[in-house]
């Protein structure tokens, strides 16, 4: 019992802290790639603390409800992950959270946030099938959806499922809101939709979304690290390498539009995943 509580604590507290740290590192690396110095590592924490202390402006009561739900779903997904529960359950929980966020944006009447929410839903539509296939791939390989079983698996999954891992790359880019797929909301507000889905959230609500995003970041990096689950060191190394690659792509690509994203990610991602699965199944 005590053991479970400790793990719960780690998921709840260390999760977002790690996510914030990843965000801070991301900003520094991005700045260096852009010939700048960049903010201190703990900048994301300052941002969130400041946002939490700002005046609360709620455009619509729904918004607050949706943000709470989003945050709760993201927390739950990460807790389920650290408790090594069922992968499918985790995927559905985080999808639920993402939909809540889009719903919150739809609740306001601002056209920016409406269009942003519309795009967010399209993004969910784009990456969910891939994420599901990743789950299926892991299941076919290990014979279980349970993360505890995956963790016990001896061989690195990435050697067996390299193409599926590439497909997961697409999911990560979309989920972490990076170019070329930062359509619904980008980190820097230099796009046609201002801040997209985030446009009408402010102050503490935005702070909570930011914390939710930290949970999401850790969760998606965690799923990524399952592909080399032979010990904590290779797991961390794989996640870090994937994250660095994504930051690099973010800085070397323009933003594309959603029609292209839907077509390309489905065609390429699904093809990669299916080819990999079929090959494994045959062999």
């Amino acid at each position, binding site marked *: 019992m005590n053991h479970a509580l400790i793990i719960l604590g780690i998921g709840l507290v260390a999760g977002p802290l790690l996510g914030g740290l990843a965000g801070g590192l991301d900003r520094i690396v991005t700045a260096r790639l852009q*010939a700048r110095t960049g*903010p201190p590592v703990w900048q994301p924490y300052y*941002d969130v603390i*400041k946002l939490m*202390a*700002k005046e609360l402006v709620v455009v619509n009561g729904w918004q607050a409800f949706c943000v709470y739900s989003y945050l709760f779903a993201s927390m739950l997904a990460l807790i389920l992950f650290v408790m090594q529960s069922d992968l499918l359950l985790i995927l559905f929980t985080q999808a639920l959270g993402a939909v809540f966020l889009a719903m919150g944006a739809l609740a306001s009447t601002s056209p920016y946030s409406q269009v942003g929410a519309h795009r967010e839903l399209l993004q969910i539509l784009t990456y969910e099938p891939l994420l599901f296939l990743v789950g299926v791939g892991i299941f076919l390989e290990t014979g279980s959806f349970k993360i505890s079983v995956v963790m016990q698996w001896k061989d690195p999954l990435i050697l067996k499922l390299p193409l599926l891992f590439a497909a997961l790359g697409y999911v990560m880019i979309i989920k972490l809101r990076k170019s070329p797929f930062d359509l619904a909301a980008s980190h820097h507000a230099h796009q046609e939709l201002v801040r997209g889905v985030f*446009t009408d*959230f402010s102050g503490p609500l*935005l702070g909570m979304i930011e914390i939710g995003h930290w949970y999401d970041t850790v969760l998606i990096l965690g799923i990524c690290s399952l592909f080399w689950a032979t010990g904590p060191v290779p797991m961390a190394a794989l996640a870090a390498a994937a994250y660095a690659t994504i930051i690099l792509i973010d800085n070397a690509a323009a933003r594309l539009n959603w029609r292209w994203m839907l077509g390309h990610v489905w065609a390429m991602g699904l093809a990669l995943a299916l080819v990999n699965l079929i090959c494994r199944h045959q062999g």
Partner: protein
Amino acid sequence: MPIQWLDKLIRRARVKSPWLLHFDCGSCNGCDIEVLACLTPVYDVERFGIVNVGNPLHADLLLVTGTVNRRNGRVLTNLYEQMAAPKVVVAIGSCGLSGGIFRTAYNVIGGVDQMIPVDVYVPGCPPRPEAIIDGVFLALDRLSRPAKSSDRPPLKPVAGRSSP
């Protein structure tokens, strides 16, 4: 005791993470490109956690360049009113201070302070990016103090405001 500690933390966070909103209020672009230049590698204000969010709901700092006229004054007050407290305003350039070289033009009401309360004035035509960054820092000083809405003078009723 923990309350004081929390208060200190929050104030520190405010100083460390000012998000800015830039509004070009009838400027000649000279000041705007200097504000933008602050974001770029040579000056890089992200070192201090400053980012341009372009959305009044998220911003803490309002940077206004240029003179106020009847049409954009309404936009300016709207933006100001949409920003959540605590917020500070920095007026940039001679134009933002008083109307500058355009003061006597027929469609110019004057400086930014004719419309909204201004905390820091950055003179120059255009001010150098260093001066703008300095102005922003002076404004941060104000953010670090506890915010009370009674601190602020009410908006001045000026001809051209949408509603008094």
